[in-house]
């Protein structure tokens, strides 16, 4: 099946991008990498769809159009709108162009690699539904969630944390690829929209943060202690 041939390499690229965002320190490059990952996942959406329906299955014109529209919407939001919002925030808030980690670069990378291995090991213990040929989506999803979580918990800058959150959401999106039939279209759209609005609101708050503090670093946000 052709789509099976496309899905797995796509997911491998997404996984490699995880490691890339964990190591790169230029904010601009992290945003770009996250945008590429988002757009890639958007493109994998119709691929996974074709995979599930099987080769011989004929799609109606309406279903085809819906699939096309949704793909365009996901690619546009994940690959263009959200990265644009973030870049704008960087420009307006005049933050440092480097992201810094509280624990350095090597440790998150090691934990990310370990997390990926563990995700693969863990996913082997879970039964797969019979119609799914590819075994990669579940470990890829879990590994991406782990990487997003790592970014969230180790990045000092508010924007770095938002990027971590987006990577985490991307991981969940990969899992969602398996469930195209179980989770109907409105929910998928709602999920993407929620992500969009969430980042939007975070962007607004972030602007307030950067206005209140010279550098929008979470280290300044530490007056609320016990």
């Amino acid at each position, binding site marked *: 099946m052709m789509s099976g041939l496309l899905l797995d390499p796509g997911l491998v690229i997404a996984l490699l991008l995880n490691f890339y965002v964990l190591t790169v320190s230029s904010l601009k490059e992290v945003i770009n990498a996250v945008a590429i990952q988002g757009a890639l996942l958007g493109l994998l959406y119709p691929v996974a769809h074709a995979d599930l329906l099987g080769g011989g299955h004929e799609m109606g014109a309406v279903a085809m159009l819906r699939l096309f529209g949704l793909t365009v919407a996901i690619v546009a939001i994940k690959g263009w709108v959200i990265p644009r919002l973030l870049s704008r925030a960087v420009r307006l808030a005049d933050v440092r162009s480097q992201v810094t980690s509280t624990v350095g670069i090597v440790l998150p990378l090691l934990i990310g690699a370990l997390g990926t291995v563990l995700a693969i090991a863990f996913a082997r213990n879970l039964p797969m539904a019979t119609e799914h040929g590819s075994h990669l989506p579940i470990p890829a999803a879990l590994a991406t969630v782990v990487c997003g979580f790592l970014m969230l918990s180790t990045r000092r800058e508010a924007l770095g944390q938002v990027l971590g959150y987006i990577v985490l959401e991307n991981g969940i999106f990969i899992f969602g690829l398996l469930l195209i039939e*179980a989770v109907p279209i409105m929910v998928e759209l709602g999920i993407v929209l929620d992500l969009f609005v969430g980042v939007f609101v*975070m962007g607004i708050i972030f602007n307030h943060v950067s206005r209140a503090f010279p550098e929008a670093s979470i280290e300044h*946000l530490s007056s609320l202690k016990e």
Partner: protein
Amino acid sequence: MLSTVLILTPLIAAGLALAVPSNRWRPWIVPAGAACHALLTLFAVTQPLPTGPPGWLRIDAQSRFFLSFISLFFLILATYLPAYLRSNGGRSNRILCACLLASLSSMTAVITAHHLGLMWIAVEATTLATAPCVYFEHTQRALEATWKYLMLCSVGIALALLGTLCLAYASLHCGLHSLLFEDLMVHAGELSAPWLHVAFVFVLVGYGTKMGLAPMHTWLPDAHGESPAVVSALLSGALLNCAFLGILRVYLIISAAGHARDIQPMLIFIGLFSMAVSAVSIGRQTDIKRLVAYSSVEHMGMMAFGLGVGGVGVIAALLHVVHNGLCKGVLFLTAGNLYHAYGTRDMRQMKGVLRRVPWSGAAFVAGFFAITGAPGFGPFVSEVMMLGGAFSGGRTLAGCVFLALLFFVFVGMGNTVLRIALGPPPELSDASDTAEKREWTSSSAPATATHPPYWAGERLGDTLPAFIALVLVVILGFYTPPFLRDWILMAVEAAH
């Protein structure tokens, strides 16, 4: 149909609040919208439960119970809002009023959503709707609290989504292809068991973050402390319960599948851990609203504990939704009055509360006794039921730890509350002295004193809503209405 109207009504009121130009009259739209919502709810919950093919929105047995409580609770809070804003100074309340109504709408959506994916969207919407309310004071501390709230809850809810998707994957195994609650309940036995367990772990951590269970509770004291009293009460009494409903629904599915015993230890552990965290922290609080917020962590832990012991504990947990919610209403609304009367939330500067603000002070102290489980108040009833569930279910050790933690929280909280309640109040006339004192303590004081100038003594609007909630708590301490018992029993039928 009816649920759609219920969701849309507060949204329309929110639009109206955005359009009204007068800062003085705008707050009245909130109680008006809440009253419409309550009337519609009254109509909706007296209808027979729906049968037939489920839609995405439906008022089922669980929604009926939660919806009636949340609608009533919001109405009580809404009647307090105009008085609160009058005592709080001249800041524009446009966003606050609109967002409060929008949060009512999204909470209604959480409760009536029969599709677990839709419920997830609605929970995320409640976070987005309440975040601007937390930021109402526009201070740096409020900003920090809002950032933490948004970030932690969004991450938590993302994990809940992963859990929801795992649930969908479990249903894929038996060819169900559905996330509708009723479908999942009916076919629970055929769902893939390993995936159900994974789903529950993610849902517990995810919605547990939003619910304020330790160790994911760190956003909660900050957000409750920094937001206006009405918003704290709303978060504590209504929003946390919506997240609890998310956990409850998945718990019911797993119970129907016959795996409840596998997940119960997890719930008991996280419940007792939350109570322990609260017991350790509550005695050290100097900010009055953070004090009450830690009590929320404790009581959310109790509700998880109730689910964990199963049987009568599950019924007690739902009863505790009402009892805890109403008590939190009393405590936060009166804490808001104390804040206005003293111009600070720092309890080291509050003395003689019972004399300075007799009505609010008395209600606050009564609320303290109620929430710590003194006999004669609602929470006592549900806590005894939880203990009974623990001992009769053979979980003696967990029951003993529960009892000990209750005692520690009582001591920790009582120590502070009684110290501010008794004694003579500080001199009011000497304004320069208090200002000096404030400066002197400002390095360590969690709340910078701002505006007693707007406080003109206790008025009916300040105290009546808290007293209504208090009266309900006392009534529930002696008498559980039969309809409430029936609704709870029907809501948790599957857990038996």
